[in-house]
């Protein structure tokens, strides 16, 4: 028996689970070990892939609440008189339009329009923004932000080593955060905190940022604290969450949750080789509301005619297409799967795939080559799963 975790490219992985010595660990690592987590290498970090059961963790987030350590993600601070203008130039969205304590999903584009990373940007004050980048893209994002800062009055600080980030996600997430001892002095009460809004607060005297954001398709919060307070916050959340059924959840559950929610994962749906339009992200590029920004002319020119576009695929049975598997239309190769799994919530296989544009209409029947067996798959609108509001 062999396996390829997070990568079907290495299906003959002989040494299972052995940590590479230069892999980084989260400030919460000792608590994960004590909780019996299994670890995986993700973006250069050794992070919990699951604690006990990835399915149980997935279902806990859909029905109660889950607690994730996402400290591998990069925190980059952008400060200065021209921070807003600068971000409008450096990134694809119009970040200057953000109000204080508002957040936005955006992209960092290369000059050719390819996607360097997808980001969440939080406006902390008139002159201060927090940029959250993917762990594996920390260096390219920091490098691009520094390179684009020429001529602007801004300071770029990579705070990744200084902050821990945890996510409480699920229908009972608010109850958990509300009940957590030590969280005080919220500028905006949790009940008034809208989706993609954040507030500053304190946790046991340390600065805390609470954002109503997430990557699961559920209501939830992401909490950013200085590394020194991370373990105490994790313990406090765990304790407060017990009555609500809060379950520690790893990256395996995070991946199936975000896939059901139709959210892209960098390196799978998003790469340097696709333009935002192909990934269904034209709406996050502010072509009409701002001027010059890196990648603008390439996005305006658009992808080549015939460039593949991202779609959702739904199948029957229990066999899932996986990243890298071919999508076919009859005998013709028509695309490639970027992520796929048997959906724990829906009970059937789901996938995201890039397919030829004439095959992208919902209802189109295609097939996925699952290691030599063709599994029928129907183009479906994203997301696969939407919570009841």
């Amino acid at each position, binding site marked *: *028996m*062999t*396996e*390829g*975790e*997070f990568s*079907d490219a290495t*299906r003959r992985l*002989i040494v*299972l*689970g*052995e940590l590479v010595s230069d892999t980084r660990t989260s400030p919460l690592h000792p608590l994960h070990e004590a909780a019996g987590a*299994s670890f995986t290498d993700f973006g250069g970090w050794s992070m919990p*892939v*699951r604690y006990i*059961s*990835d*399915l*149980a963790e*997935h279902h806990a987030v859909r029905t109660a609440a889950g607690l994730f350590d996402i400290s591998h993600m990069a925190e980059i601070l952008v400060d200065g008189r021209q921070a807003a203008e600068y971000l409008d130039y450096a990134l694809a969205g119009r970040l200057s339009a953000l109000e204080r304590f508002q957040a936005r999903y955006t992209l960092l584009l290369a000059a050719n329009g390819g996607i360097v990373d997808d980001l969440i940007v939080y406006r902390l004050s008139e002159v201060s923004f927090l940029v959250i980048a993917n762990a594996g893209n920390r260096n390219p994002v920091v490098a691009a932000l520094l390179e684009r800062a020429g001529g602007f009055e801004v300071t770029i600080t990579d705070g990744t080593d200084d902050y821990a980030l945890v996510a409480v996600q699920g229908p009972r997430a608010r109850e958990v955060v509300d009940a957590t001892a030590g969280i005080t002095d919220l500028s905006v009460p949790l009940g008034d905190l809208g989706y993609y809004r954040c507030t500053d607060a304190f946790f046991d005297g340390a600065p805390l940022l609470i954002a109503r954001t997430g990557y699961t398709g559920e209501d939830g919060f992401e909490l950013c604290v200085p590394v020194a307070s991370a373990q105490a916050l994790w313990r406090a959340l765990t304790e407060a969450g017990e009555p609500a059924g809060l379950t520690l959840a790893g990256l*395996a559950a995070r*991946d*199936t949750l975000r896939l059901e929610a139709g959210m892209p994962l960098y390196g799978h749906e998003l790469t340097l080789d696709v333009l935002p339009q192909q990934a269904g992200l034209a709406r996050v590029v502010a072509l009409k509301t701002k001027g010059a920004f890196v990648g603008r002319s390439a996005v305006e020119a658009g992808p080549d005619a015939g460039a593949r576009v991202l779609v959702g695929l739904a199948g029957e049975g*229990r*066999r*899932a297409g*996986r990243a890298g598997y071919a999508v076919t239309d009859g005998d013709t190769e028509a695309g490639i799967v970027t992520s796929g*799994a*048997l959906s*724990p919530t829906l009970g059937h296989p789901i996938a995201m795939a890039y397919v030829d544009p004439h095959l992208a209409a919902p209802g189109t029947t295609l097939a996925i080559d699952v*290691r030599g067996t063709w599994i029928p798959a129907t183009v479906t609108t994203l997301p696969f799963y939407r919570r009841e509001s």
Partner: protein
Amino acid sequence: MADKTRLSYTPEHEWLLVDGDIATVGITDYAAEKLGDVVFVELPAVGSPATAGTVVGEIESTKSVGELFAPVSGEVVEVNEAVVDSPELINSDPFGEAWLIKVRFTELPSGLMDHAAYQALVGE
């Protein structure tokens, strides 16, 4: 559940229980844990030939795809339909209810490990 200390093991994280010329084959608890929750199992047909080192089945979890290798050459004489119907047995009882196939073999391959050697391989 089989006595783990009396089983033979392969570097592909499979176990064998040898009884006469029949080898019962499953995957180890270590492999099951690394896979995560198993959601799909495909096993070979009864009567099909097995060649040591070739893929005869698949084990899918939410996150991964594992291949089942035939650890011995011979004929598949029985497969465990219960595990096809309830793949989660692989996580709950990998050495017992979740045996996968029985193979009638002519000779055992070299390179099988005893329990101690396998424990050393997985660092336990």
